[in-house]
């Protein structure tokens, strides 16, 4: 499959995530759109790692080139799991204080 197709798909998913962050007001949906953007990047990293592996395979049949990309995806997933746990705790705390998850209530940090 040509690498451009994967780039277009990832760009489409990433742009949908950006539009969601810009247009929605519910903090949880904004957070979900951030997850969508992370996943678009993950997909692109895996596609590039396979592209790199295909190029390296032509010269050396036993190469493991491109394995770094897949490990980066693994670490991105690890960091995303930690990020979600802390972020959702922050959203719960915000809901407890202002009884809403509308991010417009966050434009005043005082009080």
């Amino acid at each position, binding site marked *: 499959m040509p*690498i451009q197709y994967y780039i277009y798909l990832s760009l489409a998913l990433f742009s949908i995530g950006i539009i969601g962050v810009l247009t929605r007001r519910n903090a949880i*949906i904004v957070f979900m759109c951030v997850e969508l953007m992370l996943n678009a990047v*993950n997909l692109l990293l*895996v596609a590039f790692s396979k592209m790199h592996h295909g190029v390296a395979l032509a010269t050396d049949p036993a190469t493991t080139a491109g394995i770094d990309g897949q490990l980066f995806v693994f670490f991105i997933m690890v960091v995303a799991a930690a990020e979600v746990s802390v972020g959702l705790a922050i959203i719960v705390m915000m809901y407890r204080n202002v009884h809403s998850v509308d991010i417009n209530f966050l434009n005043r940090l005082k009080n």
Partner: protein
Amino acid sequence: MSITEILFFFLSALAVFSAIMVLVSRNPVHSVLWLIAVFFAISGHYILLNAQFLAIVNLIVYAGAIMVLFLFVIMLMNLNKETERNKHIWMKLAGAVSGGCFLMVLVSLVRQASDFQEKTALMGTGDIGLIKNLGKALFSDFVVPFEISSVLFLSAMVGAVVIGKKE
């Protein structure tokens, strides 16, 4: 058209459609369910690329753990109804236009880039995505980041408990 191409276009259409439905659903629970559909489509892409370990981890971590956490928080706050107030149509239009401009600029950039011409991603072959090879690399070359990520998890756990604690 081979079976791989058919699967690729089907999974791509599923992913983009589900991602759009995440945005336009008014009910947050429906958004979470559509996002799970996106994750399943992306896992299908990983399987097509023969990255089986990442496909399974994506399903377990994202669709299994993270989305359950989202659903749990939504249920906890009793948000499973349409609570979002209508905002100005201009704000939505501005967001959509800026996101579309971003997409257009990058697509035109990729179309012209000479680095990506004639390059293909290897489908179905290549064994770097198998658990054996990834595990070898993870515990030899990447063992320090792996251990550091355990510290990250510990700090995230402590942070979540401290933030979520009442008073």
